């Protein structure tokens, strides 16, 4: 089908975009790369009265290093981040996860900010953002605020942003040296929507797991950290048994989706298997290989 009728404007800078958004907050949608928005318009799932095209605001297209974090402009495209040496050096789990984000052509135009604001529960980036503890900077014509990942991702397809607020920057903490990480995904075909995506980060000090973070995304429910699995490993001596305990905790805790692509039991099984695999990879990267 074709998109419904809408008014269109392309403000020349961020200030003008925020003014336009504040003026038309109730009826307008921001257009960034359009890789989620335009398909939704094509099938007429949504019919905004106005699109405010921010896709050309180069002032929000950047990746810079701060002392302890990366600052990524909300309108930076996926492929710019995927191919960035700065991101590879400071947040390698993001690059690993990007292999699974849509496909190359969509990554050419899609933006990190647009992806996070859409908050599709099948998306990998909200999971990564939640795992690494990134924060989101939102601006409106009247104010600016920083939002934690936990607060930002409200529910599937919903964020904490007010109607007149725009996500302008994502602040990603550096993964410090010695951290292990892994991101794995199972889908029916490579590049398809995940059945289960899973990510983790951890360090190992004197054989003991520290700062363990484990996240699972089942494509229907919102991506989440699995506190029980994290607690099962935190402060324990790393071993095959400890990994097995964490995998069981994942299987016992998550509410897995049940649909025509995979039933709930299968998804739980996949989540546990990916947890075992990714923890082994992360431990090896943190300097301690664990035998099967």
């Amino acid at each position, binding site marked *: 089908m074709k998109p419904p*009728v809408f008014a*269109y404007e392309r403000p020349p800078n961020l200030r003008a975009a925020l003014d336009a958004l504040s003026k038309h907050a109730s009826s307008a949608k921001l257009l960034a790369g359009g890789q989620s928005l*335009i398909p939704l318009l094509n099938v007429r799932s949504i019919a905004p009265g106005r699109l405010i095209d921010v896709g050309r605001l180069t002032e929000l297209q950047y990746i810079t290093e701060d002392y302890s974090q990366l600052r990524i402009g909300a309108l930076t495209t996926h492929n710019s981040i995927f191919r960035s040496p700065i991101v590879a050096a400071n947040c390698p789990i993001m690059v690993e996860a990007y292999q699974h984000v849509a496909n190359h052509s*969509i990554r050419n135009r899609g933006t990190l900010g647009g992806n996070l604001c859409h908050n599709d529960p099948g998306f990998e980036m909200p999971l990564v953002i939640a795992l690494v503890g990134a924060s989101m900077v939102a601006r409106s014509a009247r104010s600016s605020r920083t939002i934690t990942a936990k607060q930002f991702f409200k529910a599937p397809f919903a964020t904490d942003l007010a109607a007149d607020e725009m996500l302008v920057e994502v602040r990603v903490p550096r993964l410090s040296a010695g951290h292990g990480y892994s991101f794995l995904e199972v889908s029916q075909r*490579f*590049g398809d929507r995940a059945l289960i995506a899973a990510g983790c980060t951890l360090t190992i000090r004197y054989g003991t797991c520290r700062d363990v973070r484990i996240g699972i995304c089942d494509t229907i429910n919102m991506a989440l950290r699995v506190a029980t699995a994290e607690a099962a490993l935190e402060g324990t001596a790393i071993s095959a048994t400890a990994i097995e305990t964490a995998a069981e905790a994942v299987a016992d805790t998550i509410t897995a989706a049940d649909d025509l692509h995979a039933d709930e039991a299968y998804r739980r099984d996949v989540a546990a298997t990916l947890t075992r695999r990714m923890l082994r990879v992360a431990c090896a990267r943190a300097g301690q290989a664990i035998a099967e």
Partner: protein
Amino acid sequence: MYELDVNVTVNGRIFKRRIQPRLLLSDFIRHEIGLTGTHVGCESGVCGACTLLLDGLATRSCCTLAVQADGRIVETVESLGRLNNLSPLQRAFWEKHGLQCGYCTPGMLMLITELLRENPNPDRETIRLRLNDNICRCTGYEDIVSSVERAVELMGVERVVG
């Protein structure tokens, strides 16, 4: 009706049109410019048949508004070659039977045009990974991969011969 003016460079020529902002780039190219080589498959970003290059980057024209191409450079399959003068990439698809019904072919060609510009010597795995973007319903993937490998050879020879 709410309309606005756009200027889009398509295959080296500037086209000025007055359009509705809801017009998709795929429809702009086909209906306003009259270049029907760009095919429309799913119109929801799944199949890749409508892939063209926007400022040099492979782009799904059904997931792009024509207004987003205002002031920019579009390259379509018509920029590659002619029936009596195929480009090396098109010739390779012909030689290696990289198409059956041909519906997905323009999208495949433009997707691979971008790949070969950034990497003139991709290995088979790299080619397969990139072809993951687009769907061929005749399931001729093996021959498409071989076609791209053949194009790499032909273009290599062309570079040496000059």
